[in-house]
């Protein structure tokens, strides 16, 4: 009962904020409402018996990635989107139609798939962190390492890309340039780290990704 209520609340919240993300003209609002979406999704994750993923969601997404977005938005001081003449109406219409079609297709298949699928009672094993960590550093170790590598590369790429070539005039305070250039690298650098740490610290190390 409570669960349904929570689901209803946060699903509605997620949808509403998602709409704001897409529709609002001001990037700052979009970003903030994305935060709301993410948090409500995190709650849903908890409902689905994935508290760890939920924590990571909040930690990495809201704590790092979206902050990054906000940071860039402000650094570039991107105001409201220019309300130019209504270009690309075809584009918009096609997009909406396509999305609707996708929705119908997927919805139908879901409905006939799990229309009345009853969930087995949540078993603790699924929730337990140690099991997750074990699998992460067992079957998926290689993937893990690869992701680490990817992040390392991303750090380097971001630093190179954002590095300011002379003469450069960032719109906002020059003293932020360093931050600006360092910024994108950051979450990369850290969540890439756990693979040095080896086994059991892994999941915790990913928490380090929060940075």
């Amino acid at each position, binding site marked *: 009962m409570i669960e349904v209520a929570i689901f209803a609340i946060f699903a509605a919240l997620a949808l509403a904020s998602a709409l704001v993300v897409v529709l609002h003209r*001001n990037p*700052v*609002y979009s970003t*903030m409402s994305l*935060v709301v979406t993410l948090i409500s999704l995190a709650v849903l994750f908890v409902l689905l018996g994935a*508290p*760890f993923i*939920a*924590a*990571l969601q*909040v*930690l990495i997404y*809201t*704590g*790092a990635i979206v*902050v*990054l977005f*906000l*940071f860039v938005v*402000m*650094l570039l*001081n991107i105001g409201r989107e220019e309300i130019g003449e209504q270009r690309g109406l075809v584009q918009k219409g096609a997009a909406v139609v396509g999305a609707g079609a996708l929705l119908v297709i997927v919805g139908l298949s879901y409905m006939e798939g799990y229309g009345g699928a009853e969930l087995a009672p949540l078993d603790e094993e699924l*929730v*337990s*962190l*140690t099991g997750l960590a074990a699998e992460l550093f067992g079957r998926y170790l290689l993937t893990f390492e690869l992701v680490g590598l990817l992040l390392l590369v991303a750090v380097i790429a971001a630093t190179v890309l954002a590095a300011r070539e002379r003469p450069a005039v960032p719109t*906002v*305070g020059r*003293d*932020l340039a*360093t*931050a600006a250039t*360092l*910024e994108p690298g*950051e*979450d990369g*650098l*850290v969540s890439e*780290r756990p693979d*040095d*740490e*080896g086994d*059991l*610290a892994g999941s*915790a*190390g990913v*928490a*380090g990704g*929060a*940075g």
Partner: protein
Amino acid sequence: MLFDLGATAVKLGIFLGILLGAIAPVMVWVERRGSALIQDRPGPNRLGPWGLLQPAADALKFFFKEDVTPSLADRPLYLAAPVLAVLPALTTFVFIPFGPTVEVAGRAVPLVVSDASAGVLLFLAIASLGVYSLVIAGYASNNKYSLIGGLRASAQLISYELAMTLAVVAVLIPVGSFRLTEVVAYQRELWTPFGMWNVVPQLVGFFIFMVAAFAETNRLPFDLPEAESELIAGFHTEYSAMRFAAFFMSEYIAMTTLSALAATLFFGGWSFFGLVEGAARTVAGWFGPFWLWMGLFGLGTLLLKTVCFLGLFVWVRWTFPRFRYDQLMRLGWKVLLPLALANVIVVAAATLAGWL
């Protein structure tokens, strides 16, 4: 069911009471008297003995000041920012344990508001949300000093979150769990029969954690987001009255929660080499239920340790000069982060070796 809800409510109430009612005002006083002490001047000493009532006066002033909203500000965000500042700071406390699991009327009640399996993670996650308040405040004020302050805040917080998280990770490795209760339990069995505090094996981690904590709370020597000499007051330049107070309080509350976390991670949390339980048991032998005394003494111990850290915060604030921004970044990325990583590796190795 209802009982659990009630217990949780009670615990929450206790914490909120302590934080809002006790810590914040007291800290205001401590800060002002402490600075006076360090700077060898009297400080506020008119209201009440040793100016103890000064905080109340401040609060009154905040209540009655005019609440100004700049005409060009982004109103909704401008209003939302202070709330965003207070909420995470208050929420995080729920993960700090102040006692073991005790018997209350035949039911097991953990003396912690939420003992989630991902406890520390959630703590950090929610703490990381604090950034938004600063950034939003800076942006919404539509004032370049505020904006720069907000930007600085976001960069700085993200940078130091890494080091802090890694320090925490180093602590968690031997424990093998995210539950702070487990962390405390671990310290109670470490090495000696009376347990041992993590600060001993994790000295490096503790140092990193503290430095990061100073940065996370925008305290000197890392208070660049609100460096008055450059940015007037940074992100909360435009704020006044209760909204300003909200930022103010949120800063103190953040300090408090971080101090509590530090105490829990590195100084045995509510426990004190088994003395706390002993005292609770003896007192319960005379009168009253064990769980009550346990809770009180545990909470007391925790608060004691926390207050020590708060003192440290104040002391440092009035002692150290401010960093330059690039120095700040360099310290965070080129010193603390590598150090923390090395620390993590060493600890992991030691754990594998079975020393921890």
